[in-house]
């Protein structure tokens, strides 16, 4: 290292800011799209696991176990370098990355949804049935809205994990924050500065999301299920 240079030198980081921020935006976009798809998939799988049909329960169980068990890195190279090549599909990096992230997160979210749904007091379901509501309407208007409140914190955590996981998408060439940081770190020969800055950006994203989640949680609990739960426990 040239001794004339300062020990910490972030000038190259500042000058590369537009590229880094664009990478950051791409990372956030990938995580957000992936988590939205994961929510839908996870909900379907959770309902399958709670179904009265044994085969559906089994399929959902295996799905959950598989995607919760497989490391993202292994899944992504399997999808991008294994499956795509074997099937002869030329999958672009960004969709491949988003699909992989979505599948992985849907495994975790299905568990979250399932426990959220099971946490809804059984009396609520009985009351809905007693009114003559169909199973669908009971689920839609009574169970899911209440499960949603319980689910918000773990859902927020999952979103945070998805944001952090986008760093691995650099492996398949998604031009997100980590990929750009790697390229720039090599270019300027300043890995410490670039990776530190990348770390700080991820930290920033995580803090903002966590804060947003706790605000949302407070807002929703303004008229929460808590009082009823406490009464039920006391009885």
């Amino acid at each position, binding site marked *: 290292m040239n001794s004339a240079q300062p020990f910490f030198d972030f000038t190259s980081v500042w000058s590369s800011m537009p590229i880094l921020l664009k990478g950051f935006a791409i990372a956030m976009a990938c995580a957000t799209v992936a988590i939205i798809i994961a929510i839908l998939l996870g909900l379907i799988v959770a309902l399958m696991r709670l179904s009265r049909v044994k085969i559906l329960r089994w399929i959902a169980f295996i799905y959950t176990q598989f995607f919760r068990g*497989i490391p993202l890195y292994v899944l992504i190279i399997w999808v991008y370098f294994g499956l795509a090549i074997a099937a002869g599909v030329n999958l672009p990096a960004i969709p491949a990355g988003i699909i992989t992230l979505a599948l992985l997160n849907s495994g975790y979210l299905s568990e979250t949804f399932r426990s959220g749904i099971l946490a809804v007091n059984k009396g609520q379901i009985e009351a809905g049935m007693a009114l003559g509501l169909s199973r669908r309407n009971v689920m839609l208007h009574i169970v899911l809205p209440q499960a949603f409140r319980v689910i918000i914190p773990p859902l927020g955590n999952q979103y945070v994990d998805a944001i952090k996981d986008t760093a691995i998408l650099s492996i398949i060439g998604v031009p997100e924050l980590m990929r750009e940081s790697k390229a720039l770190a090599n270019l300027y020969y300043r890995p410490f500065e670039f990776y*530190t800055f990348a770390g700080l950006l991820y930290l920033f994203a995580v803090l903002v999301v966590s804060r947003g989640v706790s605000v949302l949680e407070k807002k929703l609990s303004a008229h929460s299920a808590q009082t009823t739960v406490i009464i039920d426990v006391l009885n």
Partner: protein
Amino acid sequence: MNSYKFDWAVIDKYLPELLKGLWITLEVSLVGMAIALIFGLLLAMGRLSPLRLTRSVANGITQVFRSIPLFVMLFWVYYGLSLKFHVLFTEFQAGALALGITGGAYMAEVFRGGLLAVDPGQREAAMAMGISKSTTFFHVIFPQALRVVVPPSVNVYVGLLKGATIVSVIGVSDMIYVAQYVSLQTFTPFELYSVAGIVFVALTVSISGFAWMLERRLGRGRSE
């Protein structure tokens, strides 16, 4: 049309190399976990310290290291730290250290939860008998906290094991590295990665299952 030729025989041929790679993944993750346990316990004790400054620092470190992706941490340690401070980590050391730092932040949370889960009446009861602070911690609080701590610790380990798969990117010759290397010669990535995936799913699912069992076992003893 697709011209990919499936060749599962390649698995048979390279199985010893793949398993050797798997063993390296296990080693990295176990060393990482050992670091995480020590680092995590220190952080947890810092977070429960009566000193406000210690608390804030420990809280800050936990938050930062939990928020940085393991992948970034790995590059930060291997390229960033080693270049900046002229410490030459081997790939294996860098991998274990990155796992240890990230895992430590998660373990801090686990340990803190475990220590807080012990009924404050236990401490009071010990104090009332005139037992010293350190004896109270090691003989009363810690054994009880351990029960709460073990199952989530196993889950943290599963996370580290899954995270450990990325060490191949800095050149640790783990299972994925072997799979990549072999597939360059044989052009059978699908077969190799499929086997790697199945092995990892089997491994993590069984360890998670073990944690689940442990949780039920230990949970039963708690009310005794």
